[in-house]
């Protein structure tokens, strides 16, 4: 009964709507367009003939009915309460062609004969235009082009056609022939085939020795070694460390060899996927990273998340230096493999509470840091100091759909994308009012990355009280995650109500090409105190879970993983995740 456009279900019109449209020319709702009134803040759209009109049922004269509909054909207003009486239905039955009406308080089309809401693309476009054109302007950061909402007349079916390249089977060139001959190890040796298949562990599982409080590094490296697009990139020889070092004048491994974290990653991948099961010491990698992040170079324990960010920056920096001009817009991920894999785009809408003016900005991000929900359930309202940022603190305790106060990743994401009233001490400058006003802020995800990394803010640093503490509260996380409700398109839809969105096609193609479903493949956990703790990574390979505790790798049951205290969770797009079969030896 409904067709899909751009992946969104578009409802089919009812027969009455079809007849109405066919009888009333190309713009059957033209007259209504002038009657759309939008009231800031909140931007609700209503239908009024005059701005001060008090709509009233033509039959019973009552204006206090909860549902009033204006007939689109004759503009007469009627009430609709199917249990008591429906003067709107009476009207539609008495005059054929007058079945279609519009809800005067919600600006939504209704078929009185079917008793159901109906949708018309042009009408919904006009409503959304009225809601956005006066109250919204868009700005963007990082030098990318200004994003305009093109609404009227845009054709969502008109997607940009991608240039297709003919398929040619790959042949190694001369350089690759040589390196292949010298350095490669057969994956499946005919002689060792039985040996390989009998070792239960999948490829690429190798312990990493702790070089002195380096579990923060080992845990992240294990996750990255099994990040599917990253693994494929390096194992597919997309960054060859020999060519790279040659290009950069590092000959014979002299001390002046140029720093390249990507080369070190390449070496790490080669070592870990070599088939050798003895624990590996990533000393060279550690040394290179120390050179890159000099302020963190010590044998003290570091934050794994900080290491993760610094590593991605390190890979990016090196590549940036090579390129003369970086033409790629921020967030597109064209600059380096790190961003190609992890970079997404966040959208931030800030709405002035006084005039309704909304300013939208887009920022790239390589991960999403989530706050754990404040006190729930049993412990009462002791942390009400947090209510500045979350006016729902009390409400959270009362919400019926929270299971016994367990925090979930989805709950955190919901809070992340919730519209948040910024406190009166956080007034933001409104371009329209030209003064700082109280604002409403809402985050959403404009473009999903290939791999979503969620970082749980477990370490609280208070500069006021000069102390830090760790939040040990358990967070439940799913093995499969659908990110659709947190996308900008979904958040916008919930803001504007039940509409067909004509400018869906304007939303970046990438978010429509790839699905929104993600699969968990790595979890970095932290146990212990802030200053004396230990990081462990759980990896999901061939649908088995493995615990990577520095040099020790063991297979574990998934219930262990579910119960673990997640600090960073890595999810990959489902289409890129292989649920391999149990038998690996067969080919």
């Amino acid at each position, binding site marked *: 009964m409904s067709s899909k456009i751009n992946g969104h279900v578009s409802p089919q019109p009812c027969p009455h709507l079809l007849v109405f449209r066919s009888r009333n020319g190309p713009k059957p709702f033209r007259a209504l367009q002038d009657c759309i009134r939008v009231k800031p803040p*909140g931007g609700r759209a209503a239908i009024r003939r005059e701005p001060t009109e008090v709509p009233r049922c033509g039959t019973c004269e009552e204006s*206090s009915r909860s549902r009033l509909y204006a007939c689109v054909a004759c503009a007469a207003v009627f009430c609709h309460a199917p249990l008591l009486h429906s003067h709107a239905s009476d009207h539609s039955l008495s005059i054929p062609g007058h079945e279609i009406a519009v809800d005067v308080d919600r600006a939504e089309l209704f078929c009185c004969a079917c008793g159901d809401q109906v949708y018309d693309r042009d009408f919904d476009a006009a409503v959304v235009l009225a809601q956005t054109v006066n109250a919204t302007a868009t700005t963007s950061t990082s030098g990318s082009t200004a994003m305009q909402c093109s609404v009227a007349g845009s054709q969502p079916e008109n997607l940009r056609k991608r240039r297709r390249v003919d398929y040619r089977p790959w042949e190694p060139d001369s350089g690759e022939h040589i390196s292949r001959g010298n350095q490669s190890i057969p994956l499946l040796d005919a002689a060792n085939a039985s040996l390989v298949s009998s070792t239960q562990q999948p490829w690429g599982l190798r312990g990493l020795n702790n070089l002195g409080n380096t579990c923060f590094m080992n845990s992240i490296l294990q996750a990255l070694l099994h990040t599917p697009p990253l693994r494929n990139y390096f194992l597919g020889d997309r960054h060859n460390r020999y060519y790279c070092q040659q290009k950069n004048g590092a000959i014979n491994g002299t001390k002046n060899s140029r720093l390249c974290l990507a080369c070190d990653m390449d070496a790490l991948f080669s070592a870990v996927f070599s088939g050798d099961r003895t624990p590996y010491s990533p000393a060279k990698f550690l040394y290179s990273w120390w050179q890159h992040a000099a302020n963190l170079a010590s044998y003290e324990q570091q934050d794994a998340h900080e290491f993760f960010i610094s590593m991605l920056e390190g890979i990016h920096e090196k590549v940036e230096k090579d390129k003369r001009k970086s033409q790629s817009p921020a967030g597109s991920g064209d600059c380096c493999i790190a961003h190609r894999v992890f970079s997404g785009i966040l959208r931030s809408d800030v709405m002035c509470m006084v005039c309704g003016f909304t300013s939208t900005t887009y920022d790239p991000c390589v991960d999403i840091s989530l706050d754990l929900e404040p006190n729930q359930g049993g412990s009462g309202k002791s942390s009400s100091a947090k209510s500045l940022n979350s*006016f729902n603190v009390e409400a959270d305790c009362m919400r019926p759909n929270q299971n016994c106060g367990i925090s979930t990743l989805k709950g955190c994401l919901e809070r992340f994308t919730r519209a948040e009233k910024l406190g009166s001490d956080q007034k933001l400058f409104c371009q329209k009012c030209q003064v700082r006003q109280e604002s409403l802020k809402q985050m959403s995800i404009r473009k999903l990355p290939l791999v979503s990394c969620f970082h749980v803010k477990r370490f609280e640093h208070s500069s006021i009280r000069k102390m830090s503490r760790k939040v040990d509260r358990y967070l439940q996380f799913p093995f499969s995650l659908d990110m659709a409700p947190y996308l900008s398109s979904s958040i916008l839809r919930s803001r504007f109500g039940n509409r067909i969105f004509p400018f869906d096609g304007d939303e970046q193609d990438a978010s429509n090409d790839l699905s929104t479903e993600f699969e968990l493949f790595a979890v970095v956990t932290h146990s212990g105190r802030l200053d004396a703790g230990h990081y462990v990574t759980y990896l999901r390979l061939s649908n088995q879970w493995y615990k990577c505790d520095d040099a020790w790798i063991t297979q574990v049951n998934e219930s262990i993983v579910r119960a673990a205290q997640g600090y960073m969770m890595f999810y990959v797009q489902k289409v890129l995740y292989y649920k391999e079969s149990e038998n690996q030896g067969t080919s």
Partner: protein
Amino acid sequence: MKHSVNRPPTPDAAEDQGKEPPLQEIINVKLIESGEKERLMELLRERLIDCGWKDEMKALCRAHVKKKGRNNVTVDDLVHLITPKGRASVPDSVKAELLQRIRTFLMSAAL
């Protein structure tokens, strides 16, 4: 008195029959004209979201749609379904707050 539905609305009809508009009507018009109704609606929406009422109603609707099938449910069905439950489950504090607001408004608007 039943009005014939084929006749266009006649604003004079009420006066012809000597009927006074009911008090509810007068109050409603005053609320709308002053813009207070809009403000009250926004406040009510906020309160009903905060206490989880909206989520409850949404869940009820979802369950119903799941049972009946997405293409077999109309808006009227859903309104019929949640109206009694919805009216009954509005928290007393919300009712009290809104009544107080309306009372205050009426006192200030009384001429």
